[in-house]
């Protein structure tokens, strides 16, 4: 009966675009963070994972302390050795971390959004005076905080065990390096958390989101290095066997492998926990002239060395979260 009124429609659309949204997008976010963290910390899923991690950590640290106290030397970085010493059959603590942290992060986030759909709680929550921003950001921060809590507890556990078993107090630089490593670990987890969150927005079935997240993780853990090698060979082939060609291929392979968060994390780990590390790329003997081999770098230099890796980890987390955010904002919320 009534004809569409294009003038009115155009006007309301224009004002809608021009006018800023009322109120803060973060209103109610801390309520979401508190609720989600409480859920995470009390959920059976997290309890199982935490027990697993603590057992593995205690085992590997125990073995490491035994190893270290057997070959007591004047090592300045005893506590860093706690992280990196491996002895059969147990791998080093850092290797366990690289394996467990993505798992925990995925477990925290793979059903964060889609379970709200399937439980039909989303429309009820969004009918409260909050924006979607607050809900998603709250869920992400709750995941990140839980991850940070788990990691910090592990770090303290390690230092505690170290003091008990080694009888030496940790030095300032060791603590500093361990804290930087803690930061890198949290954001390494953040990437997988944000990734699982993206999938939980895309897929309505939590199981699909969990499987897809795990598949991506497997891809980067197992296949990416192989693919990077193959790609480097085909994109930058060695025709004459000159040094330039060899270097170009190696550099390309390294650059490609750095697309994987695992590589970034591994490099950060090496530079921070082995103070002797001077470079993460390929060094020619000419570049090493004048260097005293085996002497440790100061903390600030090690941090400078891993700065690109660290910022890369943080940036990837932010980019993935932004993607989840955009997808979530565009979603129809009708349950």
């Amino acid at each position, binding site marked *: 009966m009534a004809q569409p009124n294009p003038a*009115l429609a155009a006007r309301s659309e224009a004002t809608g675009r021009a*006018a800023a949204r009322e109120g803060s997008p973060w209103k109610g976010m801390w309520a979401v963070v508190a609720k989600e963290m409480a859920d995470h910390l009390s959920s059976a899923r997290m309890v199982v994972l935490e027990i697993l991690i603590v057992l593995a950590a205690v085992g590997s640290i125990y073995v490491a302390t035994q190893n270290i106290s057997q070959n007591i030397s004047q090592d300045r970085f005893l506590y860093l050795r706690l992280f990196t010493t491996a002895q059969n059959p147990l791998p080093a603590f850092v290797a366990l971390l690289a394996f467990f942290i993505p798992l925990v992060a995925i477990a925290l986030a793979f059903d964060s959004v889609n379970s709200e759909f399937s439980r039909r709680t989303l429309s009820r929550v969004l*009918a409260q005076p909050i924006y979607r921003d607050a809900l998603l950001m709250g869920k992400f921060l709750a995941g990140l905080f839980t991850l940070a809590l788990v990691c910090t507890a592990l770090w303290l556990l390690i230092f505690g065990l170290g003091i008990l078993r080694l009888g030496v107090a940790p030095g300032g630089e060791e603590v500093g390096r361990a804290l930087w490593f803690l930061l890198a670990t949290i954001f390494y987890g953040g990437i997988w958390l944000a990734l699982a969150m993206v999938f939980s927005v895309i897929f309505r079935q939590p199981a699909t989101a969990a499987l897809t997240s795990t598949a991506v993780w497997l891809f980067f853990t197992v296949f990416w290095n192989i693919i990077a090698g193959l790609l480097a060979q085909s994109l930058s082939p060695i025709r004459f066997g000159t040094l330039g060609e060899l270097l170009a291929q190696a550099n390309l392979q390294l650059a490609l492998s750095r697309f994987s968060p695992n590589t970034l994390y591994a490099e950060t780990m090496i530079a921070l926990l082995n103070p002797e590390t001077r470079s993460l790329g390929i060094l020619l003997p000419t570049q090493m002239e004048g260097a005293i081999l085996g002497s440790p770098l100061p903390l600030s230099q090690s941090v400078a060395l891993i700065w690109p890796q660290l910022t890369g980890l943080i940036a990837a987390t932010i980019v993935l979260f932004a993607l989840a955010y955009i997808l979530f904002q565009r979603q129809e919320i009708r349950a």
Partner: protein
Amino acid sequence: MSETVLETRDLTKKYNSFVAVDHLNLQVQAGEVFGLLGPNGAGKTTTILMLLGLTEPTSGSVRVLGLDPTRQPLSVKSRVGYLPDQVGFYDELTARENLTYIARLNAIPNQQLPARVEEALERVGLRDVADKRVATFSRGMRQRLGVADVLIKNPRLIIMDEPTSGLDPEASLEFLEMIRALKREGITILLSSHLLYQVQAVCDRVGLFHKGRMVLQGSVNELAERVLGGAYRIQLQAEGDPQAIQAALQRVDGFRNIRQTAENLYTMEAARDLRPEAAQAVVSAGGRLYKLDVQTQSLEEIYSAYFKEVEHGTTQSSLSRQV
């Protein structure tokens, strides 16, 4: 005296080429219970989502309590309670914990919070099970918890989407009683349903949805008059000359559609309760009156009569105008 709580003007929502809501004009006054009625997929839920600012309209305007839900969603959502279709709760939390979370999202100050939660639980009669996990609740209890969830923010307007679907008859009746109680407190209620007799039982006015358009709007009686010719159906049983009785009934002003349905049985429709006039007419025609009955038309009949007309393509334009 009554103020307009909710108003839409030419509200339209398109999903690509599909028109979910088509130039909807709706007005709800303070203190009334308004029923949105229509088959599934008629655009009721989409309309509700637009009223709350959860979906942006393609064109047209919405005013809820004088606010624009697309631009001031927080103000609207802090004053309007929404009970979604098949409301969901966090099953692993207790009723009290669920409500506390919602109260926190509404930024209710900490010192008031336990009292407000308690009060809301009390009002829907769930105080005894406040510390049980919601997973153990029946459908009816969940629905009541949904109302508590809405009441916690002291809303001026409550929007309910299919509030009684899936409830057993007893729980439905209880729920309708709760709606009446809310109305007595002066809360305006907009509810959508496809269960007609329930809408009829509680709504002051209803709007009939069909393919995104509001095809009829008014009180149940007004609708009955429009579609069926009369809100009251009078049945009488009388002995005597059928022709004389029918002629006498015909002479009464206000009777429509007079039919003899069986021997000695007559049916007619009227806009008012005209039983005394009917009795008088029968007696004056020399008939002997045995029984006189009146029934109000049910929405069900309006509904099916209207959609029958739509199918036959005989909908007059007068019907699609607001009553």
